């Protein structure tokens, strides 16, 4: 509701008094009406302790608070933008892929090691995601950036999905993920198929995959 896709690379957000938005700093392209942009030292919500948490976790992408009444256009770096609507579930996404989200969502930081122990940490390193990831929970919309468009693949208990770690964008729902390796003797002798590591997602929810293997 708050985000409207203008085209594949731009979204329009509506702000009204009492409805805050958070966006990546510098992602505003244009606005109409009385809108103020406040750099957010805490990098999001939840006070000083969360701020320290994010700093430690290196998930402290500079954010700004958008308040007032009017419409704002967001876009960044010519990346494709996908609007994801959440109704009570949790979205897991990298902080630097986050373009904007509604203030009604609760932002948090999750330690990947807490899901899958040591393998969780290994997974974070291999997929280049680091040891922490950002979570958004509640009701509202999120605008996520990706290189070259996004497809949504549903995950059901009967249908686990494997994703190339470099093409992974975000996922939501009750999903367990683990790093599966398909390392064989071929990879050892340098004749691998280039698909040695995969992220296995199982449970119920959806995963967003970009049409590219480039990080932002």
């Amino acid at each position, binding site marked *: 509701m708050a985000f409207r896709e203008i085209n594949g690379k731009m979204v329009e957000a509506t702000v009204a008094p009492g409805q805050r938005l958070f966006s990546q700093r510098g992602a505003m392209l244009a606005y109409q009406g009385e809108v103020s942009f406040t750099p957010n030292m805490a990098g999001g919500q939840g006070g000083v302790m969360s701020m320290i948490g994010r700093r430690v976790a290196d998930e402290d992408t500079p954010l700004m608070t958008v308040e007032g009444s009017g419409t704002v256009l967001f876009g960044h770096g010519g990346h494709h933008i996908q609007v994801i609507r959440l109704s009570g579930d949790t979205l897991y996404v990298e902080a630097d892929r986050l373009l904007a989200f509604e203030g009604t969502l609760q932002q948090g930081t999750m330690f990947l090691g807490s899901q899958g122990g040591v393998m969780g940490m290994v997974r974070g390193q291999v997929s280049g995601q680091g040891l922490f990831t950002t979570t958004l929970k509640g009701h509202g919309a999120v605008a996520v950036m990706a*290189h*070259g*468009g996004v*497809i949504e*693949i549903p995950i059901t208990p009967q*249908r*686990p*999905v*494997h*994703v*190339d770690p470099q*093409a992974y964008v975000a996922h939501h729902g009750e999903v367990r993920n683990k790093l599966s390796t*398909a390392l064989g003797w*071929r990879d050892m002798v340098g*004749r*691998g*198929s*280039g*698909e040695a590591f995969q992220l296995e997602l199982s449970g119920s929810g959806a*995963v967003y*995959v*970009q*049409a*590219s*293997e*480039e990080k932002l």
Partner: protein
Amino acid sequence: MFRLQSSKVLAVDMTGDAVKAKNGSMVAYDGEMAFKKLSGGGEGIRGMVTRRLTGEQMTLMEVKGRGTCWFADRASEINLVGLQGDKLYVESSNLLATDGGLRTGTEFTGLRGASQGNGLFTTSVEGHGQAAIMSDGPAVVLRVSPQYPLTVDPGAYVAHQGNLRQSFQSGVTFRTLLGEGGGEAFQMRFEGDGLVYVQPSERNTIAGDV
């Protein structure tokens, strides 16, 4: 079965059969899949020798299994090509995936290849089935008939199929030598009956600089 999930993502539904795809281009899959590296230049000993000689560094992998597999590469636009026994010529860097039953090989292209900055060899795909080719921006398919030959900028050429003769044409004049060229010194000319795929973007070629 090849289908386009979006203009930049190819979805392949598989029931135990195999497809060949560019190394590392899988972005996601469900079901059971196995990935095995193949190499360009064709199968067997002959293919191996061809690879050594031509330096055609295309690496393909074989994907086999049950379920759906999604492929994408650097956000390139994807075009599906159906082959009924005819031959598709494509730059190896523009080939994303083919049906397992299609034969892939390496062909000598002569001077044209060098002008495109792609080396002297190109990849051919032959048989009955589908292939997916990539282009920088959505490609247009241009029909060539005996009455209407087609001339293409080497940097914008992606692939061609059908019964076509190609020749290399140069528009070098004394102006080009003086450094006053229009940037279109070399062209590829197609004559005969077939289809040519052209992308709305130009690779860096020697021809573009003069």
